[in-house]
């Protein structure tokens, strides 16, 4: 999405490749004619690879070289994997008769353009001239340029499904772009979605009236009846498919302007609210609205909390647009996580308003109903209705237009619901690899690892998610918990205070804070936690487990210390609970060999303790006393060590752990290559056509080792020495 390297003709280093030296010369001349100052030529891609290990190459122009030991497809794949190579643009010289079948695969791996092989300089120059003017038109955005080339090949091969998926993905990267919308409309026509295409064209015109003639031409091309229908004759509501809207904003001017803008596109049914409480009360008595537009800072119920309430109420489909002067572009990730579909900066103008509306509504509609299916399945899994979820899952899986990512996401969540955390985590990682919703999956993977007590990995996943989108209550609490386990109290405190800023009355946070207070020895704050018995049970279970794992790992003193802190923190009224922990403390002392302290502790068990605890403690006291009296070593049976209130943590064999960490590491680094960095990589997936050959050709990738220029053995100029070797 940024300007690609090709823009700076004086600085961009271009390498042209061909086995024949005369062709190399022609290519060099041609590129120089285009105004590029630094042009090198090489005979093989193997040479190029060595060069790229040392120097930044801006542009690589090469044939496919399928039969060589190093082919262009491998180079493309490498570029997607090695962050240092990310900025190299690749253009292919292709024999259309025999090699065009590789092109979709190439584009999937970040190809920027392709050109028919020619031995005539003028012909090639004209072709590359076209590339330069396209780049200029798209303001040197390589993704849009690549999409243009990709479109021609998809069109030629009639891969219309892939085309539609491409345009939909592009739209998510370029919301509000009338040109992208225009291409989407064409793809819709080609996929027999005439009504949708016409509506999309209506949206194009809403964004940019000057597209009128283009839209007209498109309609004439694809509509049987020579309709030449003007946008005004479209059915009301058909542009956006929205009939009723809710606007929530304390600024009444927004009510006024919003109404005007919506009326202009024939939306009349609008409800206005100035605060969140009234809005929610009204919404809870009606059916799900078609669209909600809300300011972020609203009185009564704040924006973030209101959105979550709306989603929890069951309104999962309605697009929510947030308009606010307080948001930054990065906030969109957090907003999406919370169920917001789009955000708009204030002050906004009509075009900005319409483009966000269009975007939010486009996001929401899905020809295969993939999204609504996903939502329904998620809801069922969340409610524990596994078999019903399974039924819907088979719909999703049997629909060939469901994306791989969507399927993997659902599998990950399914396994989580079935408590198979290993499978869930693995599917989650795979989903991210297929450009599934990284944020959602990172959260899930983190939660799995938390369940698997892989706190390091969990924290890494949550941290990564946090880098993408800063705040989310559940995730912050998970970070607090993982940090506590990893004994980073500061980090835990920090995460908790962030939650406080968002939702000071969150009960999970209160519990978490209590745990943290106990751990850090702030007994007073801990015992003043205003929780109910359930909350306290949760806290105690947690502390208990912590202490146990400390003891188990040889950190007896710390374990004992934690027990003591826990006991001190429990309010006196929870006598039963206190007694249980005294028992565990006694056991810990006993195990540690401090028999006297053990007895002291056991004696503290209250009369009000449970019969079970009383019995166990009496029997234990007897045995300990016996050992003291006779100087015999105390033999504790295994079951007695761990009188815990919740089940044991799952333990994994050691090698499993490293495997997970590697998988996680790989996926975390992949997320760094954002969509839009390398042509249509992670935007386009070649779902039509056969790519077995291409896959075979890229099975093994050459080794790439970054080296610094000083390490070079070759001397300047690089060209000559390489030519010698070829």
């Amino acid at each position, binding site marked *: 999405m940024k300007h690609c390297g090709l823009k700076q003709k004086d600085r961009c280093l271009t390498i042209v490749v061909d086995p024949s030296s005369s062709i190399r010369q022609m290519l060099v001349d041609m590129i120089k004619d285009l105004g590029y100052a630094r042009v090198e030529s090489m005979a093989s891609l193997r040479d190029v690879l060595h060069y790229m290990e040392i120097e930044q190459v801006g542009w690589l122009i090469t044939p496919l070289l399928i039969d060589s030991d190093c082919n262009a497809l491998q180079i493309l794949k490498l570029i997607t994997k090695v962050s240092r190579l990310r900025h190299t643009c690749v253009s292919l010289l292709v024999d259309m008769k025999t090699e065009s079948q590789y092109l979709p695969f190439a584009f999937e791996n970040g190809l920027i353009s392709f050109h028919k092989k020619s031995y005539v300089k003028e012909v090639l120059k004209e072709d590359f001239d076209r590339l330069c003017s396209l780049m200029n038109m798209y303001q040197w955005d390589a993704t849009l340029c690549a999409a243009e080339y990709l479109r021609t090949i998809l069109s030629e091969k009639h891969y219309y499904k892939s085309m539609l998926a491409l345009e939909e993905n592009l739209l998510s990267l370029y919301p509000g772009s009338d040109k992208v919308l225009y291409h989407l409309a064409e793809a819709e026509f080609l996929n027999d979605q005439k009504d949708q295409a016409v509506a999309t064209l209506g949206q194009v015109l809403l964004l*940019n*009236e000057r597209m009128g003639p283009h839209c007209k031409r498109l309609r004439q091309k694809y509509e049987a009846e020579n309709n030449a229908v003007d946008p005004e004759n479209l059915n009301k509501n058909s542009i956006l498919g929205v009939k009723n809207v809710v606007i929530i904003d304390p600024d009444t001017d927004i009510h006024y302007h919003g109404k005007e803008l919506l009326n202009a596109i024939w939306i009349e049914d609008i409800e206005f609210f100035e605060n969140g409480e009234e809005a929610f009360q009204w919404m809870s008595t009606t059916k799900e609205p078609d669209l909600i537009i809300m300011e972020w800072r609203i009185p009564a119920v704040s924006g973030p909390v209101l959105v979550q309430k709306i989603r929890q109420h069951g309104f999962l489909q309605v697009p929510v647009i947030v308009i606010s*002067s307080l948001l930054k572009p990065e906030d969109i990730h957090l907003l999406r996580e919370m169920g917001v579909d789009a955000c708009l900066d*204030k*002050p*906004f*103008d009509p075009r900005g308003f319409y483009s966000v509306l269009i975007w939010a509504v486009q996001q929401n509609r899905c020809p295969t109903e993939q999204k609504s299916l996903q939502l329904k399945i998620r809801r069922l899994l969340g409610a524990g209705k596994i078999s019903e979820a399974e039924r819907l899952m088979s719909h999703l899986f049997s629909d060939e237009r469901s994306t791989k990512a969507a399927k993997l996401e659902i599998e990950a969540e399914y396994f989580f619901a079935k408590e198979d955390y290993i499978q869930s985590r693995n599917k989650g990682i795979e989903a991210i690899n297929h450009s599934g919703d990284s944020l959602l999956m990172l959260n899930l993977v983190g939660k799995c690892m938390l369940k698997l007590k892989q706190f390091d990995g969990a924290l890494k996943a949550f941290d990564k998610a946090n880098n993408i989108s800063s705040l989310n209550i559940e995730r912050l609490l998970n970070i607090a918990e993982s940090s506590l386990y990893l004994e980073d109290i500061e980090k835990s405190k920090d995460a908790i205070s962030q939650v406080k800023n968002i939702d000071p009355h969150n009960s999970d946070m209160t519990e978490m804070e209590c745990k943290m207070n106990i751990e850090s020895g702030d007994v007073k704050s801990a015992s003043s936690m205003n929780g109910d018995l359930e909350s306290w049970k949760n806290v105690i279970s947690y502390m208990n487990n912590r202490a146990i794992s400390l003891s188990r790992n040889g950190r007896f003193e710390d374990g004992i210390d934690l027990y003591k802190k826990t006991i001190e923190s429990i309010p006196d009224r929870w006598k039963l609970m206190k007694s249980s922990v005294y028992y565990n403390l006694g056991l810990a002392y006993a195990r540690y060999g401090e028999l006297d302290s053990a007895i002291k502790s056991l004696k503290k068990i209250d009369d009000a303790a449970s019969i079970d605890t009383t019995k166990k403690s009496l029997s234990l006291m007897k045995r300990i006393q016996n050992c003291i009296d006779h100087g015999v070593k105390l033999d504790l049976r295994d079951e007695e060590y761990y009188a815990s209130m919740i089940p044991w943590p799952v333990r994994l064999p050691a090698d499993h752990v490293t495997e997970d960490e590697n998988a996680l590491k790989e996926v975390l680094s992949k997320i760094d290559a954002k969509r839009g960095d390398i042509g249509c990589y992670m935007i386009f997936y070649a779902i039509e056509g056969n790519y077995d050959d291409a896959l075979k050709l890229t099975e093994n990738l050459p080794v790439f080792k970054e080296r610094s220029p000083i390490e070079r053995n070759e001397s300047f100029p690089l060209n000559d020495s390489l030519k010698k070797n070829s």
Partner: protein
Amino acid sequence: MIRDEEGDDYVSTNKTVLVIDDQKSFREAVAFEFEMLGFSPIVAENGEDGLEKYKQNKVDIVISDIRMPGWDGRRLLNEIRKISKTSPPFVFMTGFADLKYYEAFHEGADAFLGKPINPDILVKVVETLSSPLGSRWNHKPEEESSGEIDLDVKKSSSVQIGRLGLFVPSSVDEKILDFKIGSLINLQIVCALDDINKISGVGRVLWVRPGDYEGLEPGIGLQFEYLNDECLQKIVSYIEKHDAVETIPKGEKA
């Protein structure tokens, strides 16, 4: 503005802000934000009251809502500019910006802010509006430009300069109508305006007028963000000499 980092005392700057909004909650919120920056606030709930208060006090910056009962913000701007042509800075705050942006800037508005006021943005805007032109446009922005206007309009004075920026008609290059509002654009414009022969720097797009409106040709309005040494002084002198109300000319045919 001086802020005491340690305690809660904010050192006053002896500057005054006039806040006009018909909704009390917004009036108070904005007044508060300015107090944090060391200003003493004066509030008014409509345009007429605003003008009265302006006449009665020394005001260093005016910030006003647009849609109000009675006189609207635009009327107030005009009335104040009749009295004080080029200063103090007049800021509009609004959630919605329609085509009339180009009118507002032509009539002497200095900036637009969204509602509710974003404190981070407010600080930047107030700092900018308080600094003299020469030093305001002296620093290259950190943000990357997303487009460029590179042209030669020597033959006509179709490019027009105002107190804070310039108007560029799309007849010189159609693609400028695709620029997004708020984006930074590199400027390399060869022209003939008094002794300014080149405008070289960076501008931020404030408004885009895609078609003919009320006899005005299509074009865009940009605010100067940076001007390089050669042209900075000349442009500042030009502005001071012309002493015009327009911060960004709306592009009336000469």
